[in-house]
């Protein structure tokens, strides 16, 4: 199920900014802010010329429009409010959003026919829908070659829980042979809660690793945006009063069903500087990568890639002043594993 054409994209992006207190929520992309989905920019109707859909005449007269009903779709609904006007019959019908949205006041009660009965309590009742699933995803575990130095980098997560709530642990980092760990090297632990069919929110903590490490409270959202972009947006409140944010987006482009190209982007921002970690204020750095993996099996995929990490503003000034590189490129080769 799932995953389509450009398969599960992972563009980890977006205006980093600013979740936790740092900036107005309005700065977050609409889809991220709601538990529901953004509306596609275009009408989703297939092209009338599409010969792949013999049974489906063009959906002419289909326009996105406001839904008059109480439960009318808000702008964050997908395929919202298609206004279907028949060509000959003259009848008009309206269709609510196919995804997301809020239940109308007159929506059916799913227990309307229970009449006071409860499910059986005999032994052996099927409970597989409550199963707690544990997953370890080592998304990146790679050897790094950067400006003549060797190193390692990783990005991994462990999740455990049911469909609604999970424990979510993640870690990322870079360590080159003759340098301290990268400024974003950290371990995070969250309570993840499903907020919609494609989105969840996360509340937890982050612990930096390496010189100048701090502890942070963390909150964010993660999910799958329309067109298969994997998004993670996280805001942080540090034990020194600093505020920070990290945004990631990625996207899986299936060259074949096993050869998958994954562009991804990460942007970091901090309210004030931390000289020990070579971090300035404002947007500090980005990480733009592309990795090409081959899924030998679903769970095992060697890959190669290239990552470019520029730094910005006062962070760049700081690094320049210290004689460090303002930006660096890394060739990577690694293994993606999950189980």
């Amino acid at each position, binding site marked *: *199920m799932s995953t389509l054409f450009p398969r599960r994209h992972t563009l980890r992006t977006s205006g980093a900014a600013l979740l936790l207190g740092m900036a107005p929520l309005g700065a977050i992309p609409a889809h991220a802010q709601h538990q529901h989905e953004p509306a596609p920019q275009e009408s989703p109707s297939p092209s009338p010329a599409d010969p792949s859909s013999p049974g489906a005449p063009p959906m002419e007269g289909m326009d996105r429009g406001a839904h008059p009903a109480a439960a009318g779709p808000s702008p964050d609904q997908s395929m919202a409010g298609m206004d279907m006007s028949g060509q000959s019959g003259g009848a008009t019908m309206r269709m609510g959003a196919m995804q997301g949205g809020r239940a109308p006041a007159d929506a059916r009660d*799913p227990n309307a026919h229970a009449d006071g009965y409860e499910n059986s309590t005999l032994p*052996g009742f099927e409970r597989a829908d409550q199963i707690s699933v544990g997953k370890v995803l080592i998304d990146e575990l790679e050897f790094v070659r950067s400006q003549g130095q060797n190193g390692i980098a990783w990005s991994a997560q462990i999740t455990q829980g049911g469909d609604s709530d999970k424990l979510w642990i993640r870690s990322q980092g870079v360590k080159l042979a003759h340098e301290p760990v990268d400024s974003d090297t950290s371990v995070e632990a969250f309570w993840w809660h499903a907020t919609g069919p494609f989105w969840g929110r996360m509340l937890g903590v982050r612990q930096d690793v390496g010189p100048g490490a701090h502890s942070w409270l963390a909150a964010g959202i993660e999910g799958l945006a329309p067109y298969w972009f994997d998004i993670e947006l996280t805001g942080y409140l540090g034990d020194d009063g600093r505020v920070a944010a990290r945004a990631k987006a990625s996207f899986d482009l299936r060259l074949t069903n096993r050869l998958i190209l994954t562009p991804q982007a990460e942007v970091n921002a901090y309210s004030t500087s931390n000289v020990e970690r070579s971090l300035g204020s404002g947007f500090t750095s980005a990480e733009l990568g592309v990795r090409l993996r081959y899924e030998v099996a679903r769970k095992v995929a060697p890959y190669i890639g290239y990552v470019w990490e520029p730094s910005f503003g006062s962070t760049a000034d700081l690094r320049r002043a210290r004689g460090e590189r303002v930006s660096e490129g890394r060739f990577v080769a690694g293994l993606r594993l999950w189980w």
Partner: protein
Amino acid sequence: MHQALLGRPALNRRRFVQGLSTAAALAAIGARAEAGRASVAPGRMPELGGTEFDLVIDALPVNYAGKRRMATAVNGSVPGPLLRMREGDTVTLRVMNRLQEMTSIHWHGLEVPADMDGVPGISFGGIAPGETFTYRFTLRQTGTYWYHAHTLAEQTGLFGAMIVEPRVPEPASVDRDYVVMLSDWTDEPPLQVYLNLKKMSGYYNFGQPTVGDFFRDVGQLGLSSAIAKRRMWNAARMNPTDYSDVSGTTYTYLMNGTAPAGNWTAIARAGERVRLRFIGAGTATIFDVRIPGLKLTVISTDGQPVEPVEVDEFRIAPGETYDVLVTMPEDRAYTIFAQSMDRTGYARGTLAPAAGMSAQVPRPDRRVWLDPVDMMGAMASMSGDMSDMAPPARHARTEYGPTTDMRVDYPRTNLDDPGAGLRDNGRRVLAYADLRRPGGAPDPRVPAREIELHLTGNMERFIWSIDGVKLNDSRPIHFRKDERLRIIFVNDTMMAHPMHLHGMWSDLEDPGGGFLVRKHTVLVQPAQRVSFAVNADAPGRWAFHCHLLYHMAAGMFREVVVA
């Protein structure tokens, strides 16, 4: 936790069954002495008859895909023995569990008392290891049925065929009579399959759209059409190749327990009429069946007679049965070809005058994308005249949360649609609208009330539910004893769901509410609305669920209380 789901046959001794062998050979090695009167005919599964049956459930080593694995056998055979019974008889079936976990047998489609229905947690507490449970019921019907575990052991082979003969024997209308059970085998433990799907719902789908497909479409359709073709799916995060959760990448598709290379063979000579009793015993596989060169006359479904209808091909979902008549035109081999709906493989056998013969085996059809009607329902196929449109779907308030990734406001009602992958394929394909019960409705009462239920899912997270509520978050549906009511299903997902109501018949209706045919398992196509009437004449508690095993496990399941 998930005790019904968990379960691995004990790894131990006993026979080693090659998937390449025929069911007959299998039975010859496998039949157990204490199993009663086992009779083995060429090309048949072991068969038991009478009114007293002793069935022993045990682990059995098998080899279907090149590796030794443990299956779950009944009396040493996979599938289990064919049980032949007689209408009006009261039968006793003693089922002994030699596994190391709880198990069960459900008599699929039989009208039995609620406590004899074999669903752990609802009918009874299951059969504990080492224990024997005695089922006893009177046969009130005739036709082709089957039995299976109501746990994940269904995936490991715990199923078999049942034929209930009429009390007064019918004049012999056929020369040969065979059961053709279609199933799917995986070397992975079923719990592993379920967890793989929970962790990555597209785990087994290696036929997803690629960049290469895109450029091919650009070449054939032009850039804007190639983009437009994808926009709807990608905007909604839906997969146009999402036919089956589990595919031929792990499945070996079996015909009567025999892998394609084993070529299960039914013997028939020129001029003979043959009855083939197809049983959909796949756990996650819907099959499309045809016998190139032969017309198939469908004479019954789900054990119930239908007015004969001649087709080239039919679709059979897990739980369903179809009895088909064919006449052998000449003394040569014909391939019985059952491709999986996702076109990743097939079960195959042969109809021939002698064993060892074979005919050309077709290649599976090219995999096509789902059509927009499979996502948009009636919205995708509007011709302008909406006067005969079904009423809009009424969604439950619980369909607006994380369990439900899509809702269809205007479902389609076209029962004459054979379904995605079979449309316009140049063959005459059976559709539900072709099925007519001789003599019309078995009950003239008009349903006094309607219950609307929506089939819902979150494909990305592999959550399946009804009205957006999983089994363990739900409350039962109450049918009032002896009422006749109408169930309306609206499929809010892009997958087809074979919905099985235990204990009572589903009297399938046409879009106008007219009676079509009596079934026990109703395949509801994507974005489709289907209704059926039910006589609530069976007091007790019953299961009501999607017969795709992993959808049932994930929560597309309700308990029904008749009181």
